[in-house]
């Protein structure tokens, strides 16, 4: 930390109320620890050799080979389709639910609604995964349908709380007086929603949709249990790969996913930062 220089040099440092010895060091170690493995992973995705430990010069060969890998292509498309559909559904439902729970004082049953919406955040993923495996197996036997809808619905369900949180936060920061003013100025309830509430809550909706998208894209456990045969998403494909000989191709896929996540998060931060 740079101290302001004074004309008269004094021995000793000024007393800082906020300073605690060693804390900065641990924090520095923490950031190094968080980023060193990620940096290593990204670095080796550009390795020219077969190894994920021995650097043999810069190359994009693993990106090329991942791009050419049909299984990766399929899994990528599937991941994106599921993420788009699931985050779309989750965002729409979460928007409605946020409107239903924030533009009012307490009403009977609100706590039940909160509990249900936040349930996926509380129950261990493995338990939900097992539950869905059993339930969807019953439906698969009964209907014979084994399509992508199971994955989409399962993802949509656990994405709801993630979409709901930023939308609700946005609505709670929004004074009810805007809607009151609109009603006073002859706007019917629908027009109040269309011309006042919706435009004002849009940043929250976009933020919620992006979180939901990232969450869906990242899911491993529930997907692993719910997917039918040949329905790998990118993460479950990678999980399968980790059991075999790992090549830097996995690094390349990871790096691409990582880049997408960072991009979405940056947009999310930009959207939610300027508020109040």
């Amino acid at each position, binding site marked *: 930390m740079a101290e302001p220089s004074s004309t008269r040099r004094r021995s000793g440092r000024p007393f800082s109320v906020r300073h605690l010895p060693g804390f900065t060091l641990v924090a520095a170690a923490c950031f190094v620890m968080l980023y060193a493995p990620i940096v290593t992973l990204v670095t080796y995705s550009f390795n020219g050799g077969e190894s994920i430990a021995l650097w043999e010069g810069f190359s994009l060969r693993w990106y090329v080979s991942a791009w050419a890998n049909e299984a990766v292509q399929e899994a990528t498309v599937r991941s994106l389709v599921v993420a788009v559909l699931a985050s779309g559904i989750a965002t729409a439902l979460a928007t409605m639910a946020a409107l239903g729970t924030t533009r009012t004082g307490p009403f009977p049953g609100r706590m039940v609604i909160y509990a249900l919406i936040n349930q*996926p955040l509380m129950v*261990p993923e493995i338990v939900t995964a097992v539950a869905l495996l059993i339930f969807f197996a019953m439906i698969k036997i009964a209907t014979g349908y084994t399509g992508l809808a199971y994955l989409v619905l399962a993802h949509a369900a656990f994405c709801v709380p993630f979409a709901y949180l930023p939308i609700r936060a946005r609505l709670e920061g929004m004074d009810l007086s805007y809607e009151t003013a609109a009603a006073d100025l002859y706007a019917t309830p629908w027009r109040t929603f269309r011309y006042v509430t919706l435009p004002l809550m849009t940043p929250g909706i976009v933020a919620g949709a992006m979180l939901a998208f990232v969450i869906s894209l990242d899911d491993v456990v529930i997907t692993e249990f719910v997917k039918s045969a040949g329905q790998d998403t990118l993460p479950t494909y990678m999980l399968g790969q980790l059991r075999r000989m790992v090549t830097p191709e996995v690094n390349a896929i990871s790096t691409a996913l990582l880049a997408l996540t960072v991009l979405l998060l940056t947009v999310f931060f930009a959207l939610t930062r300027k508020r109040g």
Partner: protein
Amino acid sequence: MVRPTSALSSGEITARRTIVRRYWLLCLPALVLLVFAASGPLLIVLAYSFLEPAEYSGVVWSLSGEGWFKVILNRDIFDDTISLADAHMTIFWRSAKLSVLTTLLTLAIGFPTAYFIATRPKTHRQYWLFLITIPFWTNLLIRTYAIMEVIRNEGILNSSLMSLGLIGAPLQILYTDTAVLIGMVYVYLPLMVLPLYAAMERLDFRLVEAGYDLYATRFQVLRRVIVPLVKPGIIAGSILVFIPSLGAYVTPRVLGGGKNMMIGNLIELQFGEGRNWPLGAALSIGLLVTVMAALVFYVRNEQAER
């Protein structure tokens, strides 16, 4: 003047009812989806835990306590003697031990880190926070894989230790409990830092000044002023780390290999090779109840703080 004591006009009552109904209707689609694809199936798991396993997979629809019995006990196939299920006990113990250790280690690293961020100038804090958030939202599998690369025998940890001459042969870390612990600390660290930071950001440093004014040393201020004030954040972070640690599946599977299982992997096993769905269901419900108990403890604590 006669005035009815609790007179809401009929207009007011219908208006209120319509409003409440509208709010419920708005929440309904989300609730239907969540009941269908999240909460409802949990009841089926509960039911399955009381059924008999079928030959291959699935269940036979007849009532049985065998699933729950097998969670902790073993019946010998030949002479029906009952003994403690040692394999399960080992796994439960490992799950509990690793979860507690993960919580303590993330707290030890996360507390100074959160404090560091909270004491940065206001405009800088969001950037430090962003650095914590990126790993938080990064795919769990990718992060686990990243750690795997670092600690494997040919990984940078071993190769740098060897090139420094500190060790002669690579340390076998991967596929041990230590690997799982390192992995869990790594992946759950942001979950500790974020609530701790939220609590520390609200910390009123005038109280810290008051502590120093009243002759407290740095350590005493930390112990007697800062820690008690951010206690809700410590508890929130600990719960947020402990719960997913206990139910961890991906990290022990990738870093622990086949042997170093935790409860999550044991559950999966019953639905895969183990072919004992009722036992898997009983284990799931057991895990769920444990987690819920931790949550109830947390909520109680939260309310008591207010």
